[in-house]
């Protein structure tokens, strides 16, 4: 058994750039297992990469949780990025296209929202950040 | 709660046990009279002018299979085999134009033929007839629903497949010269078609090693801002693959939509019509079209 896998969830601790790679490879493998087409695998892996990168850049450490989901007979994948870092003071501003606190690096949250079907973010100054994104199989 | 002696759920078990016994008796009756009932059913089908797309022999052969599956479903109380058969039957008869009402019609006819036969078998014992019919009705209804739903699902699947095929056909990626692709788009572009179009184009660029692509949207009257954005993304993605995209035939409405979404005109190469677009593409590829009478001049 994969030791990062609890029940139907895969947890990948994020603390360095190598972990970004691990997270997106695990996510891609899970999505492939779920039968997503190749074009979607790329979108999902890219979204995971951006979310993991945000953790490394802004919170130093956190985790990516990957899981399969189902609704009305449709299968999908859920990606949760969680950290206890400084948080985002103005989530609305961060979700505006083109916004980033460090040049064009990281915080590609509007981009992640475009790559996935559903997107939720909970954050606040000093409260850490949790992003939950879903992609459904068509 | 019932009295102390009766265990919980005792009476439903007793009922279902007697139902099982009745169904067993019923099945035995249907097996015994298989030949006669089958023929009667086939006759009624012909009389009601159902399944007219099929020959008499075909109708009888299918009637036999449906009859046996029907009796088996009554006997076992499981519907998987019947479901599979209904799907298989639908697959065979849908291409021949058999309609939903015909399929529902023949199943209801069978139900009627069998009910009549039960009536004539048990009419002397009215109480028994009632109990037999009580056992028969729910099972027969479930069978009718299983077959009808199977047919409709199969038809929907066929329709979806046909829609998919039409979509593929409606966005051909054509190679007109080496390294030059043309994508003429006609009709309404919804988000799904837009996505499919992009995938086909990007794959086409790779397989044909295209350097220039002309996307002609003369046949598209309007597009919403989502689709317009998608078009811009497609142009940008094509460039990442090393291909230049020329968009031709923009209607005034689409031009307006593109301006509204704030398209970067530096990224979007547009030419008035398809002919102009192809000329521009040939120019980019280093071709020069010369009338035959002038071929005496040395080529560049």
């Amino acid at each position: 058994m994969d030791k990062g896998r609890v029940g139907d969830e895969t947890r990948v601790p994020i603390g360095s750039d190598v972990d970004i790679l691990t997270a997106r490879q695990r996510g891609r493998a899970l999505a492939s297992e779920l039968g997503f087409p190749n074009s979607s695998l790329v979108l999902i892996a890219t979204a995971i990469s951006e979310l993991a990168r945000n953790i490394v850049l802004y919170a130093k450490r956190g985790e990516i949780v990957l899981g399969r989901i189902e609704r009305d007979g449709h299968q999908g994948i859920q990606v949760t990025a969680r950290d206890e870092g400084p948080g985002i003071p103005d989530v609305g501003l961060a979700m505006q296209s083109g916004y980033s606190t460090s040049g064009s690096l990281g915080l590609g949250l509007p981009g992640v929202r475009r790559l996935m079907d559903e997107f939720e973010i909970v954050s606040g100054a000093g409260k850490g950040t949790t992003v939950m994104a879903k992609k459904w199989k068509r | 709660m019932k009295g102390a002696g009766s265990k919980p759920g005792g009476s439903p078990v007793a009922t279902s046990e007697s139902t099982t016994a009745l169904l067993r008796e019923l099945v035995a009756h249907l097996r015994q009279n298989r030949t006669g009932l089958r023929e009667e059913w086939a006759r009624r089908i012909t009389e009601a002018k159902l399944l007219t797309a099929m020959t008499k022999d075909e109708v009888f052969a299918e009637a036999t299979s449906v009859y046996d599956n029907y009796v088996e479903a009554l006997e076992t109380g499981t519907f998987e085999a019947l479901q599979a058969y209904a799907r298989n039957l639908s697959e065979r008869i849908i291409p021949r134009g058999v309609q939903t009402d015909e399929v529902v019609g023949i199943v209801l006819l069978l139900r009627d033929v069998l009910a009549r036969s039960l009536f004539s078998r048990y009419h002397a014992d009215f109480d028994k007839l009632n109990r037999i019919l009580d056992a028969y009705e729910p099972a027969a209804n479930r069978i009718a629903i299983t077959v009808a739903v199977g047919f409709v699902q199969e038809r929907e699947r066929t329709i979806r497949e046909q829609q998919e095929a039409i979509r593929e056909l409606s966005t051909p990626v054509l190679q007109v010269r080496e390294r030059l692709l043309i994508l003429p788009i006609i009709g309404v572009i919804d988000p799904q078609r837009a996505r499919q179009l992009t995938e086909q184009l990007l794959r086409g660029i790779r397989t044909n090693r295209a350097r220039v692509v002309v996307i002609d949207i003369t046949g598209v009257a309007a597009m919403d801002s989502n689709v317009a954005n998608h078009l811009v993304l497609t142009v940008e993605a094509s460039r990442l693959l090393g291909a230049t995209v020329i968009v031709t035939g923009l209607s005034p409405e689409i031009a307006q939509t593109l301006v509204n979404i704030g398209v970067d005109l530096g990224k979007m190469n547009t030419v008035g019509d398809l002919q102009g677009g192809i000329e521009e593409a040939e120019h980019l590829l280093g071709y020069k079209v010369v009338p035959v009478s002038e071929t005496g001049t040395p080529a560049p």
Partner: protein
Amino acid sequence: MEVPILKQGPYLIASVQSALTDADLLQLRDGLVEKVGRFRSRGVIVDVTALDVMDSFASRMLRDIAHMIRLRGAETVIVGFQPEVAFAMVQLGLTLEGVATALDLEEGLAFLDQKIKGNERGQGPRG
């Protein structure tokens, strides 16, 4: 995994073999920028055919490589983007503006040949 950089005539060819960490990308950038001077190269090709994900950092590195190589007096072309990868990139807004791209190695070489010939027109043959 380190990306091998091959010298091919006047060009450098970096052919990415597998997924790259940020550290690998930084090493690639520094290696190319250093070697382009050492070998007096005229052009650089980065082949990303093997990459199945191109996120913001990787795109930023490709752009930085192209710009730094330009400042060092040579041209860069990125080749081999997979169709799916290209579409994911533009959805993230990563369009690599101002960076030359080509379908594959062969097209990349043709691009550099033409570009360098164009730059040298009237300057005589190069050694």
